[in-house]
């Protein structure tokens, strides 16, 4: 018996060693391997940040921008979001115009939705099981914000991205059945048809300027 176990030990040891080494090397990635885990950690980080800082919950725009830049943007493919919202006209835009569109669109979204952060206090987020094959490059992660009143549907489209911090990036967001990026398509197209790409950029910039003069959210 003893010989048998020592033999198997001898044979197994390198394998166990290799497995352990592999485990140690991959563990920082493995934690976020699934898209659910990625969304769970990201929303957890944001909620913790809001809970830790009252001025964030109050919608302090400068602090929200810092939070978004540090925690959220590395996990968002904002280029893809803007390109998709602009539609086929995106290819006609010069690199400079594309850069400006991304900046103005980001400001618009951050400023509008920073108001929503103040609504967030004792809600919790429930992540639903993802129905996708493990090798899918694009996945929908469904979540629900639960608190007082009816649960709010909040879904994410995520894409596999080797260079992203968690191996995934968000490229669309669904609030209560409305895909955010899709919802900008027709008004952006309308603006470009009427006034060109520069016209859209200046409309976005004007809207951001008007919003800056008003308190957000409330």
């Amino acid at each position: 018996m003893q010989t048998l176990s020592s033999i198997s030990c001898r044979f197994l040891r390198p394998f166990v060693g290799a497995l352990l080494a592999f485990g140690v090397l991959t563990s920082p990635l493995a934690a976020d391997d699934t898209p659910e885990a990625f969304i769970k950690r990201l929303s957890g980080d944001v909620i913790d940040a809001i809970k830790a800082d009252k001025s964030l919950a109050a919608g302090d725009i400068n602090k929200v921008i810092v939070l978004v830049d540090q925690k959220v943007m590395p996990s968002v493919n904002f280029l893809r979001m803007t390109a998709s919202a602009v539609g086929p006209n995106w290819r006609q835009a010069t690199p400079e115009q594309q850069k400006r569109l991304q900046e103005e669109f980001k400001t618009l979204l951050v400023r509008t939705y920073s108001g929503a952060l103040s609504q967030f206090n004792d809600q919790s987020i429930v992540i639903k099981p993802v129905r996708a094959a493990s090798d899918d490059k694009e996945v929908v992660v469904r979540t629900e914000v639960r608190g007082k009143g009816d649960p709010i549907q909040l879904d994410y489209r995520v894409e596999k991205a080797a260079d992203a911090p968690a191996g995934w990036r968000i490229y669309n967001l669904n609030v209560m059945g409305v895909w955010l990026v899709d919802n900008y398509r027709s008004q952006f197209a309308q603006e470009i048809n009427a006034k060109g790409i520069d016209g859209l950029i200046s409309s976005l910039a004007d809207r951001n300027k008007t919003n800056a003069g008003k308190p957000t959210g409330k």
Partner: protein
Amino acid sequence: MKRQLSQIALAASLLLVGCASAPTANPKDPWEPMNRSVASFNDKVDDNVLKPLATGYRNVVPDLIQTGVRNVFNNFADMWSTINSALQLKPLNTVELIGRVVVNTVFGIYGIFDVASYIKLERHPEDFGQTLGYWGVPNGPYLVLPLFGPSTLRDGASLPIDFAVSPTQFVNDIPTRNQVFTLRLVSKRAELLKSGNMLEQASIDKYSFTRDAYLQYRRSQIYDGNPPDEEDSNDDPSANPVPVK
């Protein structure tokens, strides 16, 4: 009164034909010019009447009563959802909704307290427009209704049926009925106060932003939050955006 109404309806439908599609019109919104003017009328009514009323209601009426009022209206809505859920052959939701209505009516004292939500019986809002959508009736053109706001031809046409079974119809006395109707409207508007003028802030054209959001939202409701991808997503350039150098 009836005669007048039918004349107005006739005039309105003639108006609709008159407004038919400009060449660049959005295929989902051929009546855009008319819709835009109704939408701006609605915005004026909201700014001058409904929003001030709702703000007063929120500030003066105790939270507990506001919640109670909302729950009673929701309980009536749940009854109608139950029937529509059955019409859409959704047995599990129907049973859950029956449970909700019974629990809330009996233990929640005519629906004042939402006991059902505490025991995890969830709401599944359904209306007649959704039932028609479930059975394949298309949206038809987008339609902005005076006072009621965003709708479609299908949803607008089914509104009278939703209305016929709304709590207001159970009140025989006309002045009281109008008060109940107003209370329902104000309570609903008060719920939306906290989202502020987000629609305006989030968009460069509030009208088309609202329209597209409404159409997406209804589509999602009809598929119970899980609609299939739309066909026109193929020409989406986002899969290979040209990167910025």
